[in-house]
């Protein structure tokens, strides 16, 4: 239990660090030196030191939005086995609880954006409401596959210990589809290229960044932190799938896990460096690819399991 809580704290503390890696990778591709890896910590400290300016249009929901999105992401990590260690909390159906909790965070992020009366933020909000619909369908499709493989409905049964290795053994190559499907979900849910471009300069073309235009100071810091945690949440799932091994030693497990997470973040950085953002009406097709892959993986494994 103590170890689980420590690992949870590890996730909370290192999530900004990993996110800094993406900048480095992008800088490398751009031939620049790039910002220091610790840039996100500096940003958070800077934001927490500041005060805020609130729009006269806003209500309490605007202030509640960042708190809820950070709270939901932190709660979600409580249920996730970090580095293959048993999570802080686990119960039958916790996967559904966590996915819907992230839905709650999305509701409040959108509501906070709509609170400002800004047409730009409304535009971002509409997109934020649209694309994750398919993500959720895809996520549940993957859960169906996992349920068939394990007969359980909690993260602990999927990602703790050598469990992910069991997936590869029973399901085999269709698991590759699942990894890609998860990666697409990761890109969509965390507003990365090719769904959203966090570095673009035009508000019209943004999704997530435009929704938080009016947030400032500690509130904005909470939003950033929530985004780091959410990214870490999805990355650690992918990391556990690509390095499904149990090494029998907590320190080695953590090292391997961190390496896996690092690779995921670097892949995100590479994707961002070599791809452009899709036109908005192409994005649903991209996300639906994830659903199709998960669906095929499930159908193919139907035969294996007999």
């Amino acid at each position, binding site marked *: 239990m103590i170890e689980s809580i420590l690992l949870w704290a590890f996730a909370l503390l290192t999530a900004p660090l990993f996110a800094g890696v993406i900048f480095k990778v992008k800088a490398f591709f751009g031939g620049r030196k790039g910002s220091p890896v610790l840039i996100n910590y500096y940003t958070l400290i800077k934001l*927490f030191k*500041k*005060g*805020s*300016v*609130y*729009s006269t*249009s806003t*209500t309490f929901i605007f202030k509640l939005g960042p*708190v*809820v999105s*950070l*709270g939901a992401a932190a*709660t979600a990590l409580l249920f996730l086995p970090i580095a293959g260690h048993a999570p802080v*909390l686990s*119960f*039958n*159906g*916790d996967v559904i*609880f966590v996915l*819907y*909790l992230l*839905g*709650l965070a999305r*509701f409040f992020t959108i*509501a906070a*954006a*709509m*609170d*400002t*009366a*800004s*047409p*730009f*933020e*409304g*535009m971002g*909000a*509409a997109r934020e*409401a*649209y694309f*994750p*619909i398919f*993500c*959720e*369908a895809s*996520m*549940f*499709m993957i*859960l*169906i596959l996992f*349920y068939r493989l394990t007969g359980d*409905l909690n993260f602990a049964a999927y990602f703790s210990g050598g469990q992910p290795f069991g997936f590869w053994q029973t399901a085999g190559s269709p698991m590759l589809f699942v990894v890609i499907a998860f990666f697409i979900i990761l890109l969509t849910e965390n507003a990365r290229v090719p769904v959203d471009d966090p570095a673009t300069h035009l508000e019209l073309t943004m999704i997530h960044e435009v929704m938080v235009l*009016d947030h400032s100071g*500690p*509130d904005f*810091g909470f939003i950033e932190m929530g985004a780091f945690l959410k990214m870490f949440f999805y990355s650690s799932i992918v990391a556990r799938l690509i390095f499904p091994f149990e090494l029998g030693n907590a320190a080695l497990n953590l090292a391997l896990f961190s390496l896996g997470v690092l690779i995921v973040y670097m892949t995100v950085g590479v994707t961002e460096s070599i791809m452009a953002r899709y036109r*908005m*009406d192409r994005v649903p097709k991209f996300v639906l690819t994830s659903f199709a892959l998960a669906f095929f993986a*499930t159908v193919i494994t139907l035969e294996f399991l007999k």
Partner: protein
Amino acid sequence: MKILGVLGISVGCGLGMLDALSKLSHDGSASASFVYLNTLSLAFQIDGLSAFFLLAIFGVCLLAAIYSFHYMNHPDKALRTATNYFFFSLLVASMALVVTADNMITFMLSWEIMSLSSFFLVIYDHQIPENRKAGYLYFIFSHVGAMFIFAAFGVLYGHTGSFGFDSAGLSQAAKMLAFVLAFIGFGSKAGVFPFHVWLPHAHPAAPSHISAVMSGVMIKTGIYGILRMYSIMDLHTPALGAMVLIFGMVSGVLGVVYALGQHDLKRLLAYHSVENIGIILIGIGIGMIGVEAKNPIMAVLGFSGGLLHVLNHSIFKSLLFMGAGVVIHKTGTRSIDALGGLLKKMKVTGVTFLVGSLAISGLPPFNGFVSEFFIYVGSFRGVPMETPVFVLSLLAIVSLAVIGGLALACFTKVVGVVFQGEPRSQAAHDVDEKGPTMLLPMVILAGACVVIGIYPGTFMFMAVKAVAALGLDYGRIPMEPFARMSANITLGATLFLALLLIILALRRILYQGKTIGRAGTWGCGFTQPTTRMQYTGSSYAASILDFFKPAAPLQEDHPPVSGLFPKGTHYHSHIHDIVELHLNRMVVKPVLWLFDKLRWIQHGDIHLYIGYILLAIVVLLFFV
């Protein structure tokens, strides 16, 4: 006088609710019978299932009655208000009778009283032609539906020869026929796609407390009817479970898609009733499939999740309709795109509406999540099984996920456009929040959403008690697994709330002694924003609707801007309900054509009319 009416209805409902609660907590049942007109026997019985529905009916009607006190403040329409209360009390009584009726005669009698009294409630504002039209549409649908129920009962009566709810001696084929007929009949009351056409017309037409009652509980009598028919007939046809599930999925997904496209606040909520009836049917369908697949856990989870959603939906939907009622009462408009910024001036309405929106989107820690959670877990139970069950569970899970996402999109639209941002019209600007009896019921309902969402245990037991009354031959359903699942939800929710409190405390510390400024919204460099530049509900939903174009054709009227000095333009959009479209083309027009051709029968000559009557009697004599 009005206060007497309100008091009478609310005290009656309160007493009924207490009795239903005691029946649910002590496994109690009661029955009574009378002889009516010397020939017909009226029999009533209360079991777990009835008591569960009674709880929802009395609970919502009690609050709706209180709400109506300040809502119906039209001294100039005294007679009309009195009529409204008369039919309202009739509706409450008839709904209670419907769910307690123990034979066909009693059931149909109460059913008809219910349909007729609600018809008169719908046409409250009958000076508006649109409302009259909605009323007629409802009238036709409820009676065509009643005809199907009559037909189903006829099949039963034809085989058993008694009016009792009994299916002894029926062949499987006859049972199936009776169930399908009853499903269509009850489905048209419940608003199951494609029998839902009346619903989005009738609910907006009625006064808001009536919409709350109709959408919150009256349409659930259709669900009650389906469940009752299922428990009467010992069905062994896997296809029926699949049928219920597929109707549920289609209702769920299309209901919310159509809701997204609405511009009328109450119409939008009405379409959400179609969606939620869909979720309830998915639960029931999973239950029926579980029974066929000999998977008791799946069966009980499906049924109890569906039933709990009946209660939950009655709570948050009546809350939302009441909230919409306050908005309409104060602003005088139902158009979503004319509102905005109401949260600042209508704190109670805004916050309770927000709670209702979160609950209807199925998000934790609110009650909508709990019932969806149980349906999900039940559906997952079917995943490891063999193919028809596997495929159906898969469909149920994916459609629930899609419904969840779409509902979130729809309610962020409602909350965002109606309650947040800046007022889009003068009407939305000059609002206040008066009328404590309107606000109190909403606060109570919002409280119920949170309480059930965090402590679902007791309510889950009630739903399981109701499932036990279905007669699934599982003996006593063990409560232990349900208690554990409820405790898990409680644990997860409290943990989340605790973290939230910690972050809030942290936020307070971080903001200590900081300068907090207030300014206009950042316009990305544009310094002269107007409220008309805000994103509207139509634009918010446009891209999602575009994706669902085949099922929800959008008609747009937008003359292009052209020339160097363009004239003003306008934009108007309307989303077509494909059922309405096809019903009009394939049923209404041919029927009208046929009746037009038969017009010569109706000539106004009384002698010939008497001749018709004689002829009819003579012809009938051959058959009797």
